């Protein structure tokens, strides 16, 4: 139990009459990289939104880092150590790299409510250190990120993880909008996270990427978990069969 970083039991989310997520039991250990796969609308993003408290769950329990948690909002989840790279990036285009990394948790020279004075140097130094750690190169961190490519922006979003020593990173389709070279760049960063022993939940549609990067694959279908597969014990066709509903793992059969 002690090396389980996140565990959910019966996690459920209903939007009115729509059962987007139904009784999800999930766990991830320290240092483990787990992929979540499934068709559009299978409940992957809904699952992530409950863990990160972007939405409030209908029912179910969540343990994070050894304790029962009930985060009031995404900031609380982030402060506890869950860092999320959202599908829509969640970056402010007009701001530069350090501003984006520290958005909502700035370092101050002097605290005075909204008029607290920012410590630009400390934030820039921390940014450069974490970019170095993740191997991200950016023309100039002081330029607004509106001038950066999709890959560079994604790297900025991921570099947040390295900056704040998160206990769990969640990436929601981090390479969906990227080109071949940029995808390789992001995948390399994910490998550095693996080497550093940082746990990761990766949502992806890319079978090659999933088999390249993770230890375990969890398949969602119509709001339920239908398979939990170790990478060595499965194959691409197998996973596709679970995603499309051609197959259901025996331990989950009674749900479907």
């Amino acid at each position, binding site marked *: 139990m002690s090396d389980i970083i996140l565990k959910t039991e019966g996690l459920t989310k209903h939007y009115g009459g729509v059962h987007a997520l139904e009784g999800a039991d999930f766990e991830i250990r320290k240092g483990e990289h787990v992929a979540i796969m499934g068709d559009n609308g299978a409940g992957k993003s809904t699952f992530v939104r409950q863990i990160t408290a*972007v939405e409030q769950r209908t029912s179910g329990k969540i343990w994070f880092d050894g304790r029962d948690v009930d985060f009031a*909002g*995404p*900031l609380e989840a*982030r402060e506890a150590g869950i860092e999320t790279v*959202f599908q*829509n*990036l*969640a*970056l*402010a*285009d*007009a*701001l530069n790299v350090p*501003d984006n990394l520290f*958005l*909502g*948790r*700035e370092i*101050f020279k002097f605290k005075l409510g*909204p*008029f*607290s*004075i*920012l410590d630009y140097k400390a934030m820039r130094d921390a940014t450069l250190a974490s970019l170095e750690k993740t*191997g*991200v*190169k*950016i*023309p*100039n961190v*002081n*330029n*607004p990120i*509106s*001038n*950066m*490519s999709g*890959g*560079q922006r994604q790297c900025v979003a991921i570099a947040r993880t390295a900056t704040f020593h998160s206990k769990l990173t969640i990436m929601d389709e981090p390479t969906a909008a990227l080109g071949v*070279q*940029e995808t*390789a*760049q992001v995948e*390399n*960063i994910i490998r550095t996270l693996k080497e550093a022993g940082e746990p990761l939940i990766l949502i992806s549609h890319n079978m090659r990427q999933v088999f390249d990067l993770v230890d375990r694959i969890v398949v969602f279908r119509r709001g339920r978990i239908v398979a939990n597969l170790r990478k060595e014990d499965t194959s691409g066709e197998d996973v596709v069969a679970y995603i499309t509903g051609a197959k259901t793992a025996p331990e989950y059969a009674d749900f479907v």
Partner: protein
Amino acid sequence: MSSSTHGIGGLKYDPKKRERPPELNVFIALVAIVALFEILGRLIIGDSFLFNTKDRVDTLFNEQRLKIIILQVSIIGIIALGVTQVIISGGIDLSSGSIVGGAAMITTAFAQSAMNEYGMENVKPILGAEWLDLPIIVPLAVGLGVGLLAGIVNGLLIAKFKIPPFIVTLGMMLFMRGVATFVTKGRPISFLQEDYTAIGAGMNPVLIFLGLAVVMHFLLKYTRYGKHTYAIGSNEQAARMSGIKVDRLKVLIYSIAGLLSALAAIVMSSKALTGQAGMGLMYELDAIAMAVIGGTSLAGGRGSILGTCLGALIFGVIISGFTFMRLDAFYQEMAKGIIIVAAVILDQWRAQKQAAKA
């Protein structure tokens, strides 16, 4: 060296690669407009726009003209400081000019004296004889309170009730203009205390404008308030997901804008020695224009106080330059219109060029 300057995917890292600040373009435009008036002045009317040509005055520049240039834009400039941060946050404020009118009338009603400087008796005080010659702090507090209240109402309606800023501030614009007229049924207010009229005397409006500009520059550039203002204007959803209390921040932004409009009302009425219901009419549009000419993006997220100050100076130079060229006032309005549109076109063109480069 090549291994340390090349990242994954061949992206280069160069700390020396800095962008040209957008304010530089505004400054170049300012210099160009001044130069144009200088050249046209020498060619057409045989006088210098910028330099002193009188033998009996011992200065290099025409200081009188330079003073007037900045004095005539300083009051709208104060409003523009507040409007700038509203636009950066992704909003708009159409009510600033009317808040000037409303705050000017209410403030001057509390700033009346029993007697004017010529010894004439104030026979018909607005609020009654017991409300004359109050301590100076009273009209100031009341005036600032009016601006603050209008700003808070703007902010609450926008943040809590999710009504578009354009509609909310349009409503406030009409409401406050009504308040301005309501106070005296449209009659001007005079017999103002000497303490009060001293506020806007001489070059004080310029000093007040510049002082406030420094404060607002500091707020926007170096505090959490400023950083989050840019953030919500740039990507409100991202700001919310980062844990920024967006609603509370918006109320604060519009409150500060309201306070600045009230300050402009105090300076303006004390300088004019009177409160009038028409004060600040259409100022909201001039203030927005100053911000936009200074590089503030109406889409939100971009702009600066320095840019707005330069935008205000461009305004002042144009008004002064047209007077200097002995051209009618309606040419000024045409020129202002052209410059606003040109500024936005240039800004978009610059942004596109930059996006293509990245």
